[in-house]
């Protein structure tokens, strides 16, 4: 991924997202890594709205068409999603139960 902004002047920041470290904070999902060309650390903080927006961008016909060029991408994603969905449901139930249990405790 290459990020450029007016504030960076002529410099653009190439980042290897595949090598980024994922971490969970209380209110965001963080991706940390290093921009090798300038040896700068970077952090991308993704909030709930951003995750939704990323999914929306992913579902844009231009993105889907672009990604459809590579074979062997869709099926592994569906398999991962099928495995992910029940784990997410269980995690959601667990989080809700724990939250309500904390509320009950004086």
């Amino acid at each position, binding site marked *: 991924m290459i990020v*450029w902004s007016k504030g960076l002047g002529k410099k653009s920041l190439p980042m290897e997202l595949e090598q980024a470290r994922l971490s*969970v904070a209380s209110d965001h999902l963080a991706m940390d890594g290093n921009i090798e060309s300038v040896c700068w650390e970077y952090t991308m903080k993704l*909030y709930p709205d951003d*995750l939704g927006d990323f999914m929306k961008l*992913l579902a844009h016909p231009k*993105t889907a068409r672009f990604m459809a060029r590579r074979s062997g991408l869709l099926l592994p*994603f569906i398999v991962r999603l099928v495995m992910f969905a029940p784990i997410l449901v269980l*995690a959601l139930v667990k989080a809700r139960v724990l939250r309500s249990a904390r509320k009950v405790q004086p």
Partner: protein
Amino acid sequence: MKFWSDGLGKRELVMELSESSLDREGDAIILTGMIHQPAEWAYKVTMGLGDWTTVLKTATSAEACTYLSRSVSVARILGMGFWVVKFILLMGLYRIGSLIGLVNLERVAKAPGPVPVSSRPKLEAVSGGAVERRNTA
């Protein structure tokens, strides 16, 4: 999305992905928009196939599962699910369309259009010049 890098000092760039516009440019998807903080700056994010693959992996990672279950409402997760299903259907349709030859997934380059006759002598003059030089040599 908040983006920070060493080069930005203490500043963080706040990008509203919902306001960004998306376009395909060669082997990448380009997201363009405006950063509202710390200043009104234009931004451009170039995302290749590898980056989108990482987005897919991140979306189904253990960290995403933990974050979604702890900090995101069920309604929002269902909203994300809708976009994921749309993406799968679209990508599936494009893949099938490509396999049976209905869809060309490579961007179709703009046809250059008919070359005006008046522009042709320029090329001929160059090749003529080369021939002429060869003859004189």
